[in-house]
């Protein structure tokens, strides 16, 4: 062993520094100004004696760390026979990124892309390695780090355009991680794509490792072939002869520059073609086509708007699912049905999304059949007997919602634990100032809509009387009266919820029913209590399908199987907690039982219409963002021939010594902190 810089050993004299520090450090008596002595105990002031070395282990650690660092700077060199070093340009690590977004299906683009990929493979040297990665909105590594050209060609042949949109950033990140793992001297990414502008958003974090190059292979050609796409549909519901119908209007965009005329567009409903129209549209323009109304014959009614064949087939079909609108059934339990429930019934009668269908029952007439058919029970200032309370507990526990208005007549049996609060004595505020509602939890779904200014102010509501409510454990107070008493409370019980308002829902005790916020308050409360979620007629490829949302309708089973548009069966856990990424275009059918023919739910999946816009970008933008160089500068840097100096650099003993020294310093920090030195 020899040393390249032995003069650094002079620094060994510095080893004396820690010892001197230990022995000479003296106590200080300057006043320390501190923000507050709130936590500082009064402790008798103790003078410390002149310090002695108490922690020999710590001292040894410090000395050892310094010695190792000095040794590292002296550059020890182990003399041994040189290992053979490869000369010339060195082996390459190549990552082939192949765009499989659906726009690659335009005309002959896919054939050109696979040909370009095979060309890259054919140019690989004997010691080169390559990976094949396909990408759309996500990425998939088909083959990793191999020099077998036949396997690489097979991987390229197995790829095909999917239904997703183009996103370059995830693909470049995967390529970067593959290159970062490689030990080969030359690293290169070959990006084969149609370079659509819509796929690039100038994302940060796409930088490739230092020294890596990016070679873009644009597959664009001429985009003069006709390309029409269905970008969206609008569904207008109506009723005719006691049946619900939907009028479908399709938005169609001509992505090519030349005008088209008398093109056919068809509407398929329930698997059958029900209507056909023709349309004309100029180049680069859009139009809309309305079809005759179609009767919605059942739940999960599948519809498709389909164009004739053109150069890009994937965007020619647009799928959607409609179901007959199902009103939310509300049962108003009221002793005096004619007057007190008027405001409530009127408020529920307004609106279509969702539509509420209310019936009024007196407490003694509320049957089990009523509870089976209803989603929400409103106890409007009503005394409740113990048997009825027990039935309501069972109803809520199974997922029902309940709204309780605690007026002067409201009672609840003590032995049934369902309400968010016990009902106390009435409070009369008819003299002096009426009570006001404040402290509202605007983050709660019921009050969220009133969060913004001028969206309804509960402070304006006058309350002349209310019941003192004593919240139970597990209840959440959503609003309070000015005296601090709870005004609105919520409690979850089993699968259902109970919401309680401490006053009336008519004008007996409050002017709430004649305030503008009464209607939205009742609607928000009702939709929240029945967990109403408006249905989406379609989703986009790449979105997540939450199977727990399916089967949310009352009486439906939980899906255990998902049938994809290509016919693949994906089992999901019985509790419906799994999520599935929509990867195909078409209808995903969620089934409760593998043998059952009826679907729990159907989700229509469409391609991202933005991908149909084939406007190209400058590939140099991607190169510049990924490598920090313009495309013209992205020349491959040849590995420099190794010199005696570089061979010396490969002897990295000094590096290990430095790391060991740093590790000892870290250990010293840890130990000294533990010892409070």
């Amino acid at each position, binding site marked *: 062993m020899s040393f390249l810089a032995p003069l650094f050993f002079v620094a060994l004299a510095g080893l004396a520094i820690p010892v001197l520090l230990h022995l000479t450090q003296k106590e200080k008596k300057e006043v320390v100004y501190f923000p*507050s*002595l709130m936590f500082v*105990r009064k402790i008798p*002031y103790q003078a410390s004696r002149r310090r002695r070395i108490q922690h020999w282990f710590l001292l040894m650690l410090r000395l050892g760390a310094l010695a190792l660092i000095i040794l590292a700077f002296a550059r020890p060199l182990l003399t041994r026979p040189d290992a053979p070093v490869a000369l010339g340009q060195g082996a390459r690590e190549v990552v082939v990124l192949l765009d499989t977004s659906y726009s690659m299906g335009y005309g002959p683009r896919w054939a050109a892309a696979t040909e370009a990929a095979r060309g890259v493979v054919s140019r690989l040297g004997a010691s080169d390695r390559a990976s094949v990665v396909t990408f759309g909105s996500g990425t998939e590594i088909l083959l990793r780090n191999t020099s077998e050209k036949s396997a690489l060609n097979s991987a390229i042949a197995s790829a095909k355009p999917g239904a997703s949109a183009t996103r370059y950033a995830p693909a470049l990140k995967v390529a970067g991680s593959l290159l970062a793992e490689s030990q080969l001297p030359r690293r290169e990414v070959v990006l084969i794509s149609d370079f659509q502008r819509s796929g690039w958003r100038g994302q940060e974090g796409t930088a490739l490792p230092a020294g890596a190059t990016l070679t873009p292979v644009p597959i664009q050609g001429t985009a003069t072939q006709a390309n029409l796409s269905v970008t969206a549909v609008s569904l207008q519901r109506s009723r005719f002869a006691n049946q619900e119908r939907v009028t479908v209007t399709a938005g169609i965009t001509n992505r090519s520059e030349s005008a088209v005329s008398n093109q056919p567009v068809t509407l398929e409903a329930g698997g059958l073609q029900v209507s056909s129209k023709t349309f004309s549209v100029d180049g680069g323009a859009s139009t809309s086509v309305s079809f005759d109304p179609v009767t919605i014959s059942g739940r999960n009614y599948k519809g498709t708007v389909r164009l004739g064949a053109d150069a890009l087939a994937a965007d020619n079909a647009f799928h959607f699912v409609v179901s007959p609108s199902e009103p939310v059934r509300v049962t108003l339990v009221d002793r005096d049905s004619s007057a007190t429930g008027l405001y409530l019934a009127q408020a529920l009668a307004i609106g279509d999304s969702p539509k509420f269908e209310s019936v009024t029952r007196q407490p003694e007439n509320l049957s089990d059949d009523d509870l089976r058919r209803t989603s929400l029970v409103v106890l409007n200032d009503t005394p409740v007997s113990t048997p009825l309370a027990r039935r309501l507990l069972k109803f809520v526990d199974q997922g029902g919602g309940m709204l309780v208005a605690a007026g002067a007549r409201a009672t609840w049996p003590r032995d049934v634990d369902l309400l968010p609060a016990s009902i106390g004595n009435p409070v009369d505020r008819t003299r002096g100032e009426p009570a006001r509602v404040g402290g509202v939890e605007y983050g709660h779904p019921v009050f969220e809509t009133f969060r913004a200014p001028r969206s309804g102010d509960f402070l304006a509501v006058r309350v002349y009387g209310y019941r003192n409510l004593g919240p139970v454990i597990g209840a959440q107070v959503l609003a309070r009266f000015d005296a601090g008493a709870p005004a609105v409370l919520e409690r979850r019980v089993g699968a259902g919820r109970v919401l309680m308002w401490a006053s009336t829902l008519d004008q007996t005790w409050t002017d709430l029913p004649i305030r503008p916020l009464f209607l939205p308050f009742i609607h928000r409360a009702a939709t929240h209590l029945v967990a109403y979620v408006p249905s989406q007629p379609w989703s986009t490829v790449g979105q997540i399908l939450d199977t727990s949302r399916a089967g949310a309708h009352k009486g439906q089973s939980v899906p255990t199987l998902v049938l994809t548009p290509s016919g693949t069966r994906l089992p999901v856990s019985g509790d419906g907690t799994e999520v599935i990424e929509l990867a195909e275009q078409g209808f995903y059918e969620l089934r409760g039982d593998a043998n059952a023919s009826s679907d729990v739910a159907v989700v229509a999946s469409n391609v991202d219409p933005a991908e149909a816009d084939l406007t190209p970008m400058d590939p140099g933008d991607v190169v510049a963002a990924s490598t920090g160089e313009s495309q013209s500068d992205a020349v491959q840097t040849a590995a420099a021939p190794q010199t005696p100096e570089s061979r010396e650099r490969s002897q990295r003993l000094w590096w290990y010594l430095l790391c060991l020294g740093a590790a000892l310093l870290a250990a010293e920090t840890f130990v000294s902190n533990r010892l409070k030195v």
Partner: protein
Amino acid sequence: MDPKVLARIGNLELVSKAVVDGFINGLHKAPYFGASVDFAEHRGYVPGDDIRRMDWRVWARTDRYYIKEYEAESNMNFNVLLDVSKSMDYGGKGIKKIDYARIIAACLTSLVSHQRDRVGMAAFDSDIVEYVPPSAKHMETVLHVLDRLKPGRPGSLKEPLHKLAEHYGRRGILVLISDFYEDPETVIEAVKPLRFRGNDIMVIHVLDKDELDFGFADASPFEDLETGEQVPVVPDSLRKEYRAMVQAHIAALTQSFSKVGVDYAMFDTSQPLDYVLFRYLSARSRRLRKR
């Protein structure tokens, strides 16, 4: 951004711009307290809707009533309540707490002012020291007042905050920045009137690293910045207990604020400001979505 570097710049407008720009670039889609002026969609009119939000152009074209819905309403009142008691004038090895709080206040004000919301501020110790009423044109006034604030007197929370509650009758966002050297019960009592008026309150607890770690080495007399009281202290023997008491204080504040629905976060002055803003506002955004 390193708070020490920002403190050396000295120009609050420049500092807040530097931090806010960095924060927005890092966040891509800033939470902005859930507010924006973005148009979301039309929906059919139902009785009870504010007719001022009706889209008359659509009515003229279709003969149907439609309401314009926005992601959220703008023009929210945003006020910073800044503690300028003498204890805030402490900075161990880095930036002083008052400067750190000043920059946070300036950044949040700048962030909100970009949305054209009304901004205002109040500074207090044992009484109200400065008060700038909220206005869409008060951004520069707030920065100017923040810039020349100097801690001088001992502080308390209850009296000034109760007085300020009278000023903030209209619902808005209040950001309270202090070192909270008071019992948690007293702090909550001080904040309650602000909360009851419907204000959305964010509480930022600012402490120096020394106050959290008590990393002093030598036995010395310690002097309280507010009271001037001196206590001889041997830090080695006190450190463990001191840290436990501070952590218990923070835990009690966290729990108490959570109970009354107030967002609370503690930051030490060594943390980068854009990171602090990102972490706090995104956590707050997540919590708002969960509610």
